[in-house]
């Protein structure tokens, strides 16, 4: 089955790339922010990560794996997970969150608080949320649906999620459980598996060139000798995404 024959979209490649981050993750809460990561998490649970635990977006854990656009009536809950208990889970480490990043730098410092000087920002965004605590307590990954020099920057305006350089400068208390795992963007997958934890190209999505990635990134990426291409969804995965988990096509609306 060729790509053309089934018209695989970039969003579907991104969802599979997200899902891959949770392969064999075991019994942890996976908290995806954004439609594509949410689709990836559900896909992972229905295929190669059956044990992962997913919330209903409110205060419960879902026993079933309903589609993204499902009404609350379609969710079967297995246990309560109010916010206070979420913090117990965060601080226990039994969680892998995929947050969004308005800005991210080469060491994985992330910003979703504000653009410009924090004291009087040009643009106030949502706030640091749980990013500081997440990043020093359990695995954290990021989803950037629009890879550009505005989002992949030399310096973030406010460090919310803690990157490798910051964690290591603080010492053991911050770095002990620090694990910024990966960044998935609309152009590729990136990780920090380098000696000094600078961001590295793990794979580029089909049809994306390394030049394109470099041009859209505000710092120098580590590029290995052989750069992989992000894998395509299998026929089973495509069927699950299109016909079971996201028949409404929410995944396509997140990419510009």
């Amino acid at each position, binding site marked *: 089955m060729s790509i053309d024959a089934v018209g695989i979209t970039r969003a579907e490649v991104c969802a599979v790339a997200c899902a891959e981050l949770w392969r064999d993750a075991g019994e942890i809460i996976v908290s995806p922010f954004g439609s594509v990561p949410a689709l990836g998490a559900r896909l992972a649970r229905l295929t190669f990560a059956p044990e992962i635990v997913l919330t209903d977006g409110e205060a419960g854990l879902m026993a079933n794996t309903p589609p993204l656009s499902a009404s609350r009536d379609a969710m079967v809950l297995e246990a309560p997970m109010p*916010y206070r208990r979420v913090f117990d889970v965060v601080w226990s480490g039994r969680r892998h969150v995929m947050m969004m990043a308005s800005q991210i730098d080469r060491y994985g410092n992330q910003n979703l608080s504000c653009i410009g000087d924090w004291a009087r920002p040009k643009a106030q965004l949502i706030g640091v949320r749980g990013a500081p*605590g997440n990043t020093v307590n359990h695995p954290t990954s990021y989803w950037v649906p629009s890879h550009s020099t505005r989002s992949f920057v030399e310096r973030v305006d406010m460090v919310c999620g803690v990157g490798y350089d910051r964690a290591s400068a603080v010492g053991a208390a911050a770095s002990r459980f620090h694990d910024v795992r990966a960044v998935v963007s609309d152009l590729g997958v990136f990780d920090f598996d380098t000696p000094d934890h600078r961001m590295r190209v793990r794979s580029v999505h089909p049809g994306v060139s390394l030049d394109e990635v470099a041009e859209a990134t505000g710092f120098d990426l580590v590029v290995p000798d052989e750069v992989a291409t992000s894998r395509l969804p299998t026929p089973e995965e495509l069927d699950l995404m299109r016909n079971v988990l996201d028949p409404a096509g929410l995944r396509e609306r997140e990419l510009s």
Partner: protein
Amino acid sequence: MTDKRASLEDVVAELRDGMTIGFGGWGSRRKPMAAVRAILRTELRDLTVVSYGGPDVGLLCAAGRVRKVVYGFVTLDSIALDPHFRRARQQGAIEAMEIDEGMFYLGLLAASQRVPFLPTRAGLGSDVMTVNPELRTVRSPYDDGEELVAMPALELDAAFVHANRADTHGNAQMLGPDPFFDDLFLGAARRRYVTAERVVEPGKLLEEGPMQSIAVTRLLTDAVAETPMGAHFTSCDPDYGRDEAFQTAYAKAGADVEGGAWAAFAARHLDGSEQDYLASVADAGTAQGSSPS
């Protein structure tokens, strides 16, 4: 036994300029909005607002009542950002203490437990420590020697939470899926106020929901006010969901202060009494579900 019922007008009359006031709920969920509206009808100013922020923060900022906001985020949930809070920050009109939402929880817990701080990893290495230079770290006295953030107690002069039900003694019941941190807001405060969709006789709460849903005991409550639709336009499950159409109108108007849309919204919905507010909402025809009373 004390009957703690009071009117919201009497309750807010106890507040003073410059106080630090906590508001329960989370984002645009079960916010004590009737209490916020009651504050808007006073002349109170220079408030420090402590909140898992939603339109409570936005409305108080819009009315110029805020000196400082203590928050981890301010959001309307289904709409990512609150326009009034954004404007206040971008114009430099308010001070801010922006902290991790888990640090926020520990600050309330520390105040409730009357300890000066609680230790946490959250905040380490982030700019939360830079933009809040008053934050300190503390070294573990045990062999590990880890140096952690000492999250200071968030002591409140007053706190408001909104419940689905309460009784006249001040026990309060949350029938929705998440009690949030409401008991800790009350525990952290010197003056502790509960509003509820309906106030019943003591002993009658178990007719409304299971024992575990009574998240607040009367040990934590000084006064109780019955405020039907008291969380509107935020959600108050299972009594009513978020009034999305009304919230959208709020956000759109809030984004257009210069053009006069916000003044028109305020004149239509906020300038009168609570009864006038509810009548204006009924007139808008956007509310889902209904208050139980």
